[in-house]
C-alpha cells in the first residue's frame, strides 16, 4: 500500500503551481499544510487523476492514477463541489453509489450507513440546496467514503465545519487512517497537528518540511508561522 509521487510538476502558462515534488504515502493520515496558493489543490487534482502533470509520475502500488482500477479504491473530496438541484442528501449519495458501481440494494444500505456516520440521517430527505455549509461538507465527506477507499484524498475538508463538527470529523479520519492512506489539505494547523501521523508543509509548489511532529518539538503553529514568515 504505497502511493508514490515522483518529481511531480505542474505548470500553468508561466506559473509553476507544483514544482518537482517527490514523496510517498503509506497507510495513515498525512496532513498537507500550506497557505492559499501553495499548490495543494493542484497537487491533489493530479493525485486523483483529474489533472495531467506537466512532468513526473504518480502511481499506487504500480497502478497508474488514470485507471479504473485506481478510481475503484479512491475517495476524493474536492475543495468546491456542487450538486444537481433536484437532489436530496440521500439521492446525492445514491447517485454516487451508482457511479461507483454499487447496485440498488447495496447502495441503499451503504447510503443509510453513511448518512448515519456523518449525522445527516434526520435531513436525508431534504434538498441539498437547503443544507448549511457544514452539512453539505459532511455530505461530501460521506460521498468520498462510499467505496471504502484505500486512498482517501480530502481537499480542505474542514472548511465550513463548526467546532463540534470538526471534532467529530477528526475522530472519523483518525479511524479511517488506520486502514487507508489518507491525505488531507488545510491551511489551519490545528486541523492536523493532533491527528496527522505525518505532515508535509508546502509553499510555492515545493515541500518546505516533512516529517512527524512530536510534542517535544514545541508548537507546530509557531513552526509553521516561522517557516512562512521567512
Amino acid at each position, binding site marked *: *500500500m504505497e502511493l508514490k509521487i515522483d518529481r511531480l510538476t505542474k505548470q500553468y502558462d508561466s506559473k509553476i503551481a507544483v514544482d518537482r515534488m517527490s514523496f510517498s504515502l503509506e*497507510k495513515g493520515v498525512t496532513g498537507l499544510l500550506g497557505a492559499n496558493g501553495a499548490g495543494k489543490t493542484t497537487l491533489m*487534482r493530479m493525485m*486523483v*487523476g*483529474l*489533472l*495531467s502533470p506537466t512532468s513526473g509520475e504518480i502511481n499506487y*502500488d504500480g497502478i497508474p492514477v*488514470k485507471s*479504473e*482500477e485506481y*478510481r*475503484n*479504491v*479512491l*475517495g*476524493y473530496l*474536492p475543495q*468546491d*463541489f*456542487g*450538486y*444537481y*438541484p*433536484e437532489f436530496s442528501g440521500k439521492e446525492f449519495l445514491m*447517485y*454516487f453509489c*451508482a*457511479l*461507483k*458501481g454499487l*447496485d440498488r440494494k447495496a447502495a441503499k444500505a451503504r447510503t443509510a*450507513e453513511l448518512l*448515519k*456516520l456523518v*449525522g445527516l440521517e434526520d435531513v436525508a430527505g431534504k434538498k441539498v440546496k437547503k443544507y448549511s455549509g457544514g452539512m453539505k461538507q459532511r455530505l*461530501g465527506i460521506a*460521498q468520498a467514503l462510499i*467505496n*471504502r477507499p*484505500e486512498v482517501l484524498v480530502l481537499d480542505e475538508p474542514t472548511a465550513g465545519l463548526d467546532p463540534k463538527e470538526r471534532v*467529530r470529523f477528526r*475522530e*472519523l479520519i483518525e*479511524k*479511517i487512517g488506520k*486502514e487507508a492512506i489518507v491525505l488531507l489539505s488545510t491551511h489551519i494547523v490545528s486541523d492536523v497537528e493532533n491527528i496527522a501521523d505525518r505532515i508535509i508543509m508546502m509553499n510555492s509548489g515545493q515541500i518546505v518540511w516533512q516529517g512527524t511532529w512530536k510534542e517535544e518539538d514545541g508548537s507546530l503553529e509557531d513552526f509553521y508561522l516561522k517557516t512562512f514568515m521567512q
Partner: protein
Amino acid sequence: MMRDSEIKILLKGYCEAPDNMKKDAFIRSIGRKQQFEKVSFVKMLALQARYIRKRMWIISILLLAWAVFNISGLESEKVEIISKIMPFFACFGMIEGCRAKMHEMSELEGTTLFSAKGAYFAKMAVIAMAHFFTIVLLAVFTPGAHEKGCLIVMARLLIPYIVTSILSMEAERSIRSCGKDNEGIHIAIPFCVALVVFYGREVLYDMHVTDSLDASKVMMLLALVLVFQTIEVKKTVKLEELLWN
C-alpha cells in the same frame, strides 16, 4: 453524537482486523477483489438511466405529440414538420448530458469508478436509444410516410437530429476544455445549433425528395453525418485527458 463503539461497528464492515503481519497483503487483496468485478456497460446504463430527469422525457413526448397531432395541413407535410422538431429533440437530450459541468459535479464524478465521461456517455446512450426507437416508430407510423418510403423518412428525421448532436458535442467539448463555466452558453448553444440546423434543412429539403436519385442523396448524406458522429464521439471519449489542461 455517535459513540466510538458505534463508529467501530460501522468501520468493521470496512475491514476486519487481521493480524499485523498479513494486514497489508489482506488490504491489497480486498482492493484487487473489488477490481475483478468489473461493472458491465449494460449495468452502467441501467444505473444511470434513472438519473435522467423526467422532464427530459416529458419534453420529448410533448414535442412529438404536438407535432403528430396538432399540425393541420396535408398528411404528407407532417414528415417535414416532424423533421423540423428533431433538432429540439436532440437539444434537450444534449442538455441533460451537459449538466455535470454546469452544476460543478464534474470533479466528483470524475474520480468515481465510471468517471465523468462514463456518466455522460451512459446518459447519452440511454437517451439516444430511446430517441432512435421513437424515430423508427415515427418513420413507420407517420401518415404519408409510406408514400415516400420508411427508410427515407427515417433518414430525413435522423439527419437533423444527428447534426444537432454533433454540434452540441463540439460545443460541450470546447466549453469543457476552456474550463469556463457559463450556464448561458450551455443553454444557448444547443438552441442556436437547432436554429441553424432548422434553416439548414430548409435549404436541404426544399427540393422534393421523390425520385430515387434524390433518395440516394439523402442516404449518402445520412452516411456522411454518421461518419462525423463517430468521429465526434471518439473525440469526446478522449476528452477526460483534456478536462483540466
